[in-house]
């Protein structure tokens, strides 16, 4: 309520966040996984005097630089910008609470970028052992960067004792910190392994045998995918019970996405072990791209589940998805929406507005972040077939009707205003549905 409201239009706030976030997470995970894979494989190539692998790794690191150092860094800034536009209350909380974690992560990221460039640009210009050491610096800093950020992301689902103590350490090293970190590490390694296959197939310097050799070398990073099931069990055991239940049958969408993510990851891991490692099979460009697509969708699915099971909160048990805290809801219920002087209504006198206009202001603060008027999760479609009493009744007890909805916050008069606005959105008038009374103009 302390900020203006950004209206992203029909695509909706969620689509905008998801679009940037999933792209960034994929690239960032790849950067971590490839950062670990490349120096590890280079050390092996040096040990075995494997020139084919060493030359390939040089070209693979160019792919890493072009893909993750440019798009990864920029989308990282992008996700910050997008969240600040859509959930300024949440990002404000995360920034103030974890500023030293963000700052620490920034140091690791700076080392990651610098060592990555030194590693790539000075490939043949320093002793091999020194070069591997630079690669290890890159790998360690990239993983530690994930280590730090993971704590902040996991905090949003499981703030744990922070809710009582307000302590940085309780919030950062929260109950899902470790399982989440290991899940992300496994995912990062798998992406690195899959992109070895993709880049090897696109590499015109490699004939069929050399390509098979490279893919075999990289496939070892896919094997940890077999740990996805036990790690997920650990993750959900540490999550709030209600959140776990949603992914394990409580919500059809969440269960399907979760099931797909786990199943796809496990199958790719098994395929890597039995097909690529044990039987030393090769895969062509089409298959490697298919594996990459499966990995991308699986990662996106798991991120969707992570975001989805947190609903109706953005920080579990503390802040709802619309940026209101439980204390805000209580205050609005008691004193009314306009008594709190939301920024978007600061320049206007609510008394001079119609009920519909006041309702639109309430919609913008309490609903718009998840519901566009038309387009993504459209509010018009939702209310189109409801009569006025249904709209009133459903809005009044949103959080009971749908588990993932925050409660309506405001007085009975505010509810009337919101209902008036929602009714105005319907393409056919509510009178046609047999309702007997229009929403009352409040006596403000």
């Amino acid at each position, binding site marked *: 309520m302390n900020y203006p409201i950004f209206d992203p239009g029909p695509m909706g706030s969620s689509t905008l966040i998801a679009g940037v976030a999933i792209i960034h997470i994929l690239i960032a995970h790849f950067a971590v996984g490839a950062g670990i894979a490349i120096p590890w494989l280079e050390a092996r190539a040096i040990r075995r005097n494997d020139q084919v692998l060493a030359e390939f790794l040089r070209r693979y690191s160019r792919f890493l630089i072009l893909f993750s150092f440019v798009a990864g*860094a920029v989308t990282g800034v992008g996700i910050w910008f997008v969240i600040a*536009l859509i959930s300024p209350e949440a990002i404000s909380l995360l920034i103030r609470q974890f500023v030293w974690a963000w700052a620490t992560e920034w140091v690791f990221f700076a080392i990651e970028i610098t060592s990555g460039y030194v590693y790539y640009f000075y490939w043949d*210009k*320093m002793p091999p052992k020194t070069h591997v050491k*630079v690669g290890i610096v890159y790998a360690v800093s990239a993983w530690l960067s994930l280590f730090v950020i993971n704590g902040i992301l996991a905090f949003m689902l499981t703030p744990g004792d922070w809710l009582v103590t*307000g302590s940085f350490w309780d919030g950062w090293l929260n109950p899902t910190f470790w399982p989440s970190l290991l899940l992300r590490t496994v995912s990062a390694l798998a992406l690195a392994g899959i992109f070895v296959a993709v880049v090897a197939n696109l590499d015109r310097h490699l004939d069929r045998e050399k390509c098979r050799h490279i893919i075999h070398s990289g496939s070892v990073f896919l094997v940890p995918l077999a740990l996805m099931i036990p790690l997920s069990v650990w993750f959900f055991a540490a999550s709030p019970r209600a959140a776990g239940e949603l992914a394990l049958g409580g919500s059809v969408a969440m269960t399907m996405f979760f099931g797909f993510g786990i199943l796809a990851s496990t199958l790719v891991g098994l395929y890597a072990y039995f097909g690529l490692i044990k039987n030393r099979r090769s895969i062509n460009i089409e298959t490697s791209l298919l594996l990459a697509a499966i990995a991308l969708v699986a990662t996106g699915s798991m991120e969707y589940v992570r975001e989805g099971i947190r609903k109706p909160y953005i920080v579990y048990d503390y802040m709802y998805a619309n940026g209101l805290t439980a204390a805000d809801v209580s205050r609005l219920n008691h004193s009314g929406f306009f008594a709190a002087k939301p920024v978007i209504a600061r320049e206007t006198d609510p008394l001079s507005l119609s009920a519909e206009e006041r309702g639109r202001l309430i919609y913008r603060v309490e609903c718009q972040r998840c519901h566009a008027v038309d387009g993504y999760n459209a509010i018009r479609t939702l209310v189109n077939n409801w009569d006025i009493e249904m709209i009133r009744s459903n809005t009044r007890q949103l959080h009971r009707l749908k588990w993932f909805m925050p409660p309506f916050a405001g007085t009975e008069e505010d509810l009337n205003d919101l209902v008036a606005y929602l009714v105005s959105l319907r393409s056919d008038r509510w009178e046609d549905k047999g309702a007997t009374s229009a929403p009352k103009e409040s006596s403000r």
Partner: protein
Amino acid sequence: MSVLNPMALPAPSALLLALLGFSFVVHMLFLGLLVAALWARIGAEWGTRDTYQIESLHRAGVLAFSTTITAGVAPLLFVQVLYGKYFYSSSITIGYPWLAIVGYLLIGFYSLYLWRWRWEKADGPSASGKAFVLLTIVMLIAIAFTYAWNHLQSLSPAPWTYAVPHPQVAKRLIGYAGGTAIASGAWALWLGHSWRSDRKTPRGASIALILGCLLLLVWASLSQFAASAWGAAAWGMLLAAAALAFIAGIAGFLNRIGLARWPASLAALAGLSGLMIQRESYRLLMLSGDYNPSAQAVRAQWGPFAMFAVVLLLGIATFIWLLRVVRAAQRSTTAVP
């Protein structure tokens, strides 16, 4: 104060302001390196390309772009801690044009790589190579414009009242351009010194220094620093920077590159520090009726700060090690550094 007060400042405001100022100067220094590398590319495309070593130029450009973005994250972080309410409000008010920065960055960054690719393909300058250099420059100007717009809007306690770019954006851009020009001039001298066998000042660097010097003089005399208690410090540093830049510019025109790079570097540091002090003083002044960081509740997180400080020291040690590794690699090869 309640135990759960997540909106309290995590450190005294003076510490956060110092970190904001320091990280902003570092960011602007790297921006200067990026602009210097771009000037060198312009030189390669339109001028005396034989004297430039393209691979080094390319490395300097992408490294500078990367480090500018990375170094820019830190001041952005501290701005959000100190002035989040205003920064977020102005970002929201601007909306999609603010998000467009992500696109500008991607286009500008990839254009650097495309320029290198075109140079290899054409074995020298080409029309499309020139286009890629210009595209990067246009993107940088677009980013600077959008940042200046957001910054100025966030100086208002009610940024949502501005439907259009703040009327002072152009003036602010001139200030940034002065700081960047003088920093890039200093970097150009260092780059030129390491690349050119004749040890003469690159012409672009001399122009940058003189331009930066003039812009600083004009800007320092026109801007609004006098209203702030810190104004005198900013004013003094800016005049010192202008004087140093003038000396460096003269040395540059006399082809005394070894002499010119030191006053130029000091001028860059002084100029950017003055810019930073003036910028933050003006911000505090504009918001003083509505917000004062030093009056905010503080719930200091010294343990997490110690973690950051230790990691920062380790990071600096790692950077030094990496620099030594790079220098050893450069010494061991006769090829381009």
